[in-house]
């Protein structure tokens, strides 16, 4: 989904609030939430793709105003309700107030029917897909061309795995893009590498100039 979480390249944000030796947690409840969601994953209540997608499905204003661990909590609670571990009313009775949850999910999808194996050096384009459910392709590479620099072992396909849809595991490719192709005339020159699932990619044929 073209959600609010897909932040890469969004403009208007201020300086990074960086401190040396910055903490991962700011309050004891944050550590509890981190433990509780990972326990639920370990016990198979939901998987990491479902967890990520339930964060992405948060109402955008809630997403932007919530802290990192409030987003984590919201995903955990949403999935517990959706999986039938508790009703929302019971959850709110126990919380003694409203418990904001994420919005409903759209449908997932399986692997792209036409997939091929790429090798380092291959030129590839991120398909111009618009996916209503979970997807791990950041919108900033949609339709953009890059070069494969690495291949990773096969992983569950997130667009399916977040929705209980059957799919084959597939490799991901580290694809190198140029920031000035991604955001012409409005980016600092750099290479931007993205881990891209095979289903999101199509080959770009080289112009036939080499005779090879």
């Amino acid at each position, binding site marked *: 989904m073209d959600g609010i979480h897909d932040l890469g390249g969004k403009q208007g944000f201020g300086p990074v609030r*960086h401190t040396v030796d910055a903490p991962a947690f700011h309050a004891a409840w944050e550590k509890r939430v981190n433990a509780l969601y990972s326990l639920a994953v370990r016990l198979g209540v939901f998987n990491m793709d479902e967890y990520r997608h339930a964060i992405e499905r948060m109402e955008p204003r809630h997403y932007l105003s919530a802290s990192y661990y409030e987003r984590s909590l919201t995903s955990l609670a949403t999935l517990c309700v959706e999986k039938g571990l508790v009703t929302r009313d019971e959850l709110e009775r126990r919380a003694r107030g409203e418990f904001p949850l994420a919005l409903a999910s759209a449908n997932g999808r399986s692997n792209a029917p036409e997939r091929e194996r790429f090798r380092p050096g291959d030129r590839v384009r991120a398909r111009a897909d618009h996916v209503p459910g979970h997807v791990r392709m950041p919108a900033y590479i949609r339709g953009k061309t890059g070069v494969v620099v690495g291949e990773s*072992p096969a992983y569950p396909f997130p667009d399916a795995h977040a929705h209980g849809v059957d799919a084959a595991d597939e490799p991901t490719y580290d694809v190198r893009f140029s920031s000035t192709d991604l955001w012409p005339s409005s980016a600092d020159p750099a290479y931007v590498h993205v881990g891209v699932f095979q289903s999101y990619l199509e080959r770009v044929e080289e112009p036939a100039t080499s005779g090879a």
Partner: protein
Amino acid sequence: MSDPTRSPGPVAPVARVAPVAPIEQRVAAIESVLDDHGMAPGEFIVQAAHLVEEKWVPENGARVVARAWTDPAFRSRLLADGKAAVAELGFEMPRHHRHLVVLENTPAVHNVICCTLCSCTAFTIIGLPPDWYKDLEYRARVVRESRTVLKEMGLDLPADVEIRVWDTTADTRYMVLPMRPAHSAGWSEDELAAIVSRDAMIGVARL
């Protein structure tokens, strides 16, 4: 829908009037639900605290870096297959992290990692991500304004250094192998490990 904190949620799309419960009460509520289902959340919270405070710490990655600086064969193995190489030093990665790609900084190339979609990191090796790594600002800006963001964070790279940003959008994980500082010649592996920071392994600092 005018109030963002009153999203209808997946179950009951009706107007809700109760005030939002304080966060600690919401956490306690969900913990009690897991407890009802026999998941023993209290025990796991204690175990997880140990993991995040003592096991998954940047000192792990620092040892990996110090070994790579002092053992060329290890460095080659680390660059070829990061997950197998860190396992040699006893460091594990979660099952869903199937690949660790180690990115070597050189005088001409500087690598920096991020996760624009959420907060993914090789957390068992370089430690849990710091707060700013998960903030909207870093996620939005570092892919597009890398040199500017690094400069704002205190790393003013020479103009001829090529910047390579790595966005952790799949389950492959990355870490930066920083350049060994010139003044550290002859140091022991322990002394070297002591100067390797989490920021340097993310790539927002040089040593």
